[in-house]
C-alpha cells in the first residue's frame, strides 16, 4: 500500500473514531505539479488527500490559527521533517500543546515519499538527530559560501539588488509557521521601527528584522523562499543564520518540545571573541 493510501486510511480512522476533529493535509492543486493545503473534517473526504514529492509546503503554520486548538481537541496533520521541527518550536515557545497534534510524518525524496514512524512530536528523536548531523543541501551551501567569499561591499550590493525587488507583500512572514506574532513589529507604529514603504531602505530593514527574528528558530522549510513572488533567495540568509547558531551554540532548532530557544537562553561561558 502506498504511503498516500496508508495515510488516507489513517486519516479516515482518526476522523471517524473522533480522535481528531480535523486533518490538515495536501490536496490536488490547480495544475498537476501543484499541491495545496487541504482541510478534511470527515472520513469520506479523505480520498481527496494527496501525498507525493510535490507536497512541499510546511503546514504547521495552520496549527496556530487563532482558536483552532482552544477546544483541546486533537488535530491530525501531514508533516515533513521540517514541519515536525516547527511543531517542536511552537511547543517550546508555548504556542501549542504538542499532545494535541497527531502527526502523519513523511520524508520527501527526489521523486517519492516515505513514511516516518510515529505520531506524537516526541516520537522522532532519531530522525531529528540524524538530520542535525546531515550536511545541508550542497547547492545552497555553495551559494552561501559564494556570498561569504565576497567583500562586504559586494555582499551589500548583492543584497541591495535582491531587496530592491521586494514589494512588502509579507508573504514570507505570513507563510512562516514561526511568524505567529499577533502584531508584527512592522505593523506597530508607535514607534515605527521598520518603515513600511517598500523602497530599498525599507525593504532592507524589513528583511534584516525578519531574518534576525528567525535566527535559531527557522527550520529551513523553504516556505518563504517559495512564497516570495519576486524570488528573493531568502533561504540563503536563513541558512547562514542556522549555520551561525549551530557553530556558536551547537543549536539545531526544533529538536524537541523542551528545547530552549537559542536567543532566550544562555550559558555563562558562551564564546565572546568579539567583545572588548
Amino acid at each position, binding site marked *: 500500500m502506498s504511503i498516500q493510501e496508508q495515510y488516507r486510511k489513517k486519516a479516515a480512522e482518526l476522523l471517524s473514531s473522533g480522535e481528531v476533529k480535523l486533518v490538515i493535509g495536501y490536496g490536488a492543486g490547480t495544475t498537476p505539479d501543484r499541491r495545496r493545503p487541504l482541510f478534511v473534517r470527515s472520513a469520506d473526504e479523505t480520498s481527496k488527500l494527496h501525498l507525493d514529492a510535490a507536497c512541499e509546503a510546511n503546514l504547521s503554520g495552520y496549527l496556530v490559527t487563532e482558536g483552532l486548538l482552544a477546544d483541546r481537541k486533537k488535530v491530525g496533520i501531514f508533516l515533513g521533517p521540517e514541519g515536525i521541527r516547527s511543531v517542536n518550536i511552537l511547543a517550546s515557545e508555548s504556542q501549542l500543546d504538542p499532545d494535541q497534534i497527531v502527526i502523519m510524518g513523511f520524508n520527501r525524496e527526489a521523486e517519492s515519499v516515505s513514511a516516518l514512524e510515529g505520531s506524537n512530536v516526541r516520537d522522532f528523536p532519531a530522525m531529528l538527530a540524524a538530520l542535525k548531523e546531515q550536511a545541508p543541501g550542497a547547492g545552497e551551501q555553495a551559494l552561501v559560501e559564494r556570498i561569504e567569499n565576497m567583500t562586504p561591499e559586494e555582499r551589500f550590493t548583492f543584497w541591495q539588488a535582491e531587496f530592491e525587488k521586494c514589494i512588502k507583500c509579507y508573504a514570507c512572514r505570513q507563510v512562516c509557521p514561526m511568524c505567529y506574532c499577533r502584531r508584527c513589529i512592522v505593523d506597530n507604529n508607535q514607534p515605527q521601527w521598520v518603515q513600511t514603504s517598500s523602497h530599498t*531602505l525599507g525593504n532592507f530593514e524589513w528583511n534584516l528584522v525578519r531574518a534576525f527574528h528567525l535566527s535559531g528558530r527557522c527550520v529551513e522549510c523553504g516556505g518563504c523562499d517559495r512564497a516570495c513572488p519576486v524570488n528573493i533567495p531568502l533561504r540563503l540568509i536563513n541558512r547562514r543564520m542556522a549555520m*551561525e547558531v549551530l557553530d556558536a*551554540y551547537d543549536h539545531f532548532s526544533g529538536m524537541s518540545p523542551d528545547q530552549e530557544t537559542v536567543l532566550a537562553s544562555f550559558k555563562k561561558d558562551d564564546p565572546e571573541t*568579539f*567583545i572588548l
Partner: protein
Amino acid sequence: MNEQFEPKIVAFVCTYCTYAGADLAGTSRLKYPPNVRIVRLPCTGRISPMFILKALQKGADGVLVSGCHPGDCHFTSGNFHARRRWTVFRALLNFTGIPLDRIRFSWISAAEGVKFAELISSLTDDIRKLGPFEQYKAMIHETETPVSL
C-alpha cells in the same frame, strides 16, 4: 579633504556599569574625543539590534555597545542574553555586507573610567581612518527622490 573628518559615534550603554564608567572618566578628568553621543539604557538586554541599525541609517559613522562584565549584570543575566543576540546579529550584518568594523562591543564596569576613555579614543581613531559611513547613502537618496518612472 582639508578638514579632518570627525566621525559621529553613538554609544548604547547600560546605566549601571558603562554609563557609570563614563561618569568616572569624566570626574577623573580623563580626556577622550567628543565624538561620542551616549544613549543610556537600563541594561544591555534592552539594546535592540534595531538601535544599531537605526543609528547607522540616521548618520552615525560608528556604534559602540557596552555594558556590565559577564556576571555583573544588575539584572543578573541581561548581558548574557545580549551577548548571544550580538553574536547572531553580527553574523547577520556580516552576511548582508554591513561592515562590522564600525560596530564595537565591550564590557566596561563602573570602575573602568580609564578603559572607557581609551576605548573611545581608539574607536574614534579607527572610525576616522575608515572615513564617513556612506554605504546607506544611495538607499537614503532613493527615499528622498521622486520615482524615476
